[in-house]
């Protein structure tokens, strides 16, 4: 999850991470974690990283920030499938949640 600024608009933070900044904290699916934003419009990556236990790595030479995965526990902390939004091979955006009502096998593969 790459960012080009340490301070990110709320909508962008949600689009990239799936976590929405609300009054009650950062929420995704059925989970909310306590989080106090400095203002309603932006999310400070360092504060969000701490709240979500997601390591934040900064590449100062290229002005990039990356949030890692959630640390602690297991890779799956809930069985509610997280939203996954990726481009298909034609470049069109696809959301995993669009297949609700259908059994889905998500298959990771690679050409290498």
């Amino acid at each position, binding site marked *: 999850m790459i960012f080009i600024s340490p301070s990110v608009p709320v909508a962008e933070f949600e689009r990239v991470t799936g976590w929405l900044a609300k009054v009650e904290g950062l929420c995704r699916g059925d989970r909310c974690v306590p989080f106090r934003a400095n203002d309603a419009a932006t999310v400070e990556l360092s504060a969000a990283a701490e709240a979500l236990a997601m390591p934040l790595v900064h590449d100062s*030479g290229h002005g990039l920030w990356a949030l890692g995965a959630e640390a602690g526990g297991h890779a799956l902390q809930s069985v509610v499938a997280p939203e996954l939004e990726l481009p298909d091979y034609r470049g069109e955006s696809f959301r995993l949640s669009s297949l609700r009502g259908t059994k889905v096998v998500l298959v990771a593969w690679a050409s290498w």
Partner: protein
Amino acid sequence: MWQELRTELRPQGLEIVTVALDARGSETAGPWIAKAAPEHPSLIDAAHVVDALFGIVNVPSGVWIDEEGMIVRPPEPAHPRRPAYLDRAVGADASPEERERIELVKALHIEAERYVAALRDWAWSERGRESRYALSPDEVIRRSRPRPVEEATAAAHFALGQALYARGAHAAAIEHFRAAHRLQPTNWTYRRDAWSLAGADREAVYGTNWVDEVKREGVESYYPPLRL
């Protein structure tokens, strides 16, 4: 390879979604997808987002999600059929290194028949959770990969490596790929994709190779035996 199963199981209400973990995206994955002519969603995940989200560490891996959007099987090896390379004979003129590599490949746990049989059972079950292969929520979470801070940090380094590679900053990208490999040595998608980007120089760049790493970590780390 998945299109055939998709044709068979789509009438039962099962959809297949493939995700290509290629740092170069459609440039490298696209020709394979075009050749397969899939009717199912075929996605591109250059930054290996699914590794961070689901705990995927190698390909092919499958995750089962039921009609209500609940995960009923966490990532596990998902071979749709027995790969041809398992039956390839070792040539009489093969070098000792080549012989060792082929023997190691043949020692991998690849259980396509068992996996596909379980998938068919789930697809045919009235509601997904009635299949005995659909696991309880506690079991799904318990079987998903433990996520220490080192592995969580590896995801950030891999994403930075991919982003920098895409921007042409190859040397900086390699530093982040090395960090990802050091922090999560058993994430084979991080290793194999970075090696592939380095091409013929891979061993010089990363100071290791597939055979040495699989021998060090063990074939069960590469493809754990299926627990169906």
